[in-house]
């Protein structure tokens, strides 16, 4: 519960301003908390100049867990449609760093049918050890089966950290694993770091629609679990000389029993890079003004062999399909070059492009926030700049 020390409170109102939920009001020079509105987020506690606010953290003693018994970093690999998903390698890159900081091994968990042959690749990408659960019945992804296998392994081996991709698959069964283990899970993280003093995993994720970054900890429960967005972490280059241990695990009949039946699995996406994997992204914003002008975006994208992206304003207007939306509620991209045309640079959009090496922005408003993070900015009208750019690139290319 949030409490106010009335002796210390000077009624300055800083906490009232800081509260995102309208739960604090200064009445007669003292802060008063409306407990029905307070979500105990703790933002106010840090802002109080007098240290008058306290969030009584009832210790979650119910966990009955001794964190010191839990050691090691795990990454759950994602293997579907005959491929190891790139996010697996990204997680191993970060996992390697965390494991080094904690001086523990990095373990990958690989589940599927015929996946044994892909275990070595996980070692080359940073794992010290791979737990392989290879069984014909694991050909299809069934949440209940995968969740039981991972939670069973975790109960036996007690890792302190488990990381998974924030993909459709990861976000489907990993919450089940966390619930089975009765531990915390932080969704859709964009940054992970270890606090060495207490071996806490600091898990950072966008909150409040991307307007804030919240750092989440899981102090009294183990394992500490996170799903991580694809394309925000960097994978290590494969190193064929790396050595690792490969442990084969046989799933039990009970683990394999399921109430789900996968009738068929269909891969729809054409081969080749999707937007998230494009080296160059050309993105359209509301400033493109009309659906008709999308032709310019497509033309430039074709010239540069770029992926086409959009702001939500554009996908809401259906000038481009929903899957092109970049940002908080869309895809994250990390291309060599991102070019935004008529995009204001709302925080929800730009959280999706932070990984770009170079950002080019064209906007007629010199005050547009996108210029704050652009490598190169052009103040101008997209209807003038785009055709010129297309013409000149064609000339460069001799077409």
């Amino acid at each position, binding site marked *: 519960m949030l409490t106010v020390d009335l002796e210390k409170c000077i009624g300055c109102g800083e906490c009232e301003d800081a509260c995102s939920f309208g739960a604090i009001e200064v009445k007669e020079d003292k802060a008063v908390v409306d407990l029905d509105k307070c979500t105990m987020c703790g933002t106010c506690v840090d802002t109080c100049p007098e240290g008058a606010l306290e969030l009584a953290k009832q210790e979650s003693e119910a966990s009955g867990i001794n964190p010191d018994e839990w050691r090691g970093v795990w990454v759950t690999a994602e293997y579907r449609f005959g491929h190891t998903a790139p996010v697996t390698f990204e997680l191993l890159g970060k996992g390697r760093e965390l494991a080094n900081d904690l001086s523990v091994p990095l373990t990958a968990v690989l589940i599927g049918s015929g996946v044994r042959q892909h275990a070595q690749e996980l070692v080359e990408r940073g794992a010290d050890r791979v737990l392989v659960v290879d069984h014909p019945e694991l050909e299809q992804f069934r949440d209940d089966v995968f969740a039981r296998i991972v939670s069973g392994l975790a109960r036996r081996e007690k890792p302190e950290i488990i990381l998974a991709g924030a*993909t459709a698959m990861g976000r489907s069964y990993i919450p*089940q694993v966390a619930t089975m283990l009765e531990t915390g899970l932080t*969704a859709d993280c964009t940054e992970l770091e270890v606090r060495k003093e207490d071996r806490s995993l600091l898990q950072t994720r966008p909150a409040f629609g991307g307007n804030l970054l919240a750092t989440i900890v899981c102090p009294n429960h183990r394992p500490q679990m996170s799903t991580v967005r694809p394309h925000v972490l960097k994978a290590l280059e494969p190193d064929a000389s790396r050595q690792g241990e490969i442990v084969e695990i046989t799933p039990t009949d009970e683990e394999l029993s399921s*109430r789900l039946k996968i009738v068929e*699995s269909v891969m729809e996406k054409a081969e080749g890079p999707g937007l998230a994997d494009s080296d160059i992204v050309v993105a359209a914003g509301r400033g493109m003004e009309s659906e008709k002008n999308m032709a310019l975006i497509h033309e430039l994208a074709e010239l540069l062999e770029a992926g086409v992206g959009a702001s939500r304003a554009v996908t809401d207007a259906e000038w481009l399909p929903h899957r092109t939306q970049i940002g908080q509620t869309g895809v994250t991209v990390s291309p060599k070059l991102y070019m935004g045309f008529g995009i204001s640079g709302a*925080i929800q959009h730009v959280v999706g492009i932070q990984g770009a090496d170079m950002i080019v922005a064209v906007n007629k408003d010199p005050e547009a926030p996108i210029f704050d993070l652009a490598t190169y900015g052009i103040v101008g009208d997209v209807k003038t700049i785009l055709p010129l750019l297309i013409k000149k690139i064609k000339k460069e290319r001799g077409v």
Partner: protein
Amino acid sequence: MKIAVCIKQVPDASTVRFDKEKGTLVREGVESVINPFDYNAIEAGLALKDQVGGEVSVLTMGPPQAQDAIREAISLGVDNGIVVSDRAFAGADTLATTYTLAKAINKLGEFDLVICGKQAVDGDTAQVGPGLAVRLGIPCVTCVDELEVLEDGRKLRLKRMCEQGYDIVEVELPALITVLASLNTPRVPSLKGKMRAKKTDIPMLSAEDIGAETSKVGLAGSPTQVATTTVPTFDAKREMLEGEPEEQVDALIGKLKEAGIL
């Protein structure tokens, strides 16, 4: 078919403003609405009832004003609804939320199907549905985009989406599903529904009422805690390309060549 739909009241994104200086949300005059995906969850429940008969109940864990959300669901045609509300629930993360919702559902009775939205737009976690399924001991299918009742009414055939494509999944009931916006188009409230919503008493259940242990709800039952919050900042490495459009574009082409892109 007995169906329970879990809905959450969230701040209406279009009325939230952000104070950059202070790094906080300004929620004055902010309205609360039903989480967008939860409209699709309600619609899925109503459509199933239209097709095979049965009863649709909605529930929400939230502050007392979450009654408004239940009332709106009743105006859309659900049979009944409850709010589980207690100061002890404040600060709940998804583990504490699923514990509370599971207790409430068990209190209400037995259900063939529990429906959740894919995710709540305030937290964006998408964790409550799958976690709740584990608590209830039933199978879960997430990201449902198409739904069909198989002849015997004891099974559903679902299309669940993923990045690369989709799966067709059959699941025995009881089960839990989370639904996408593409599953259906939510209906609008009828006049009769609105009248009924106005007159209906909406029960409010406390932690005690649903038999929840206080150590497992709210902040006390939440393994995760917010350590710090920060306003995101970006390195400004900006260089503005000045001049007439022609010059600006030439300068850009130069930069792209320098970087080996052209």
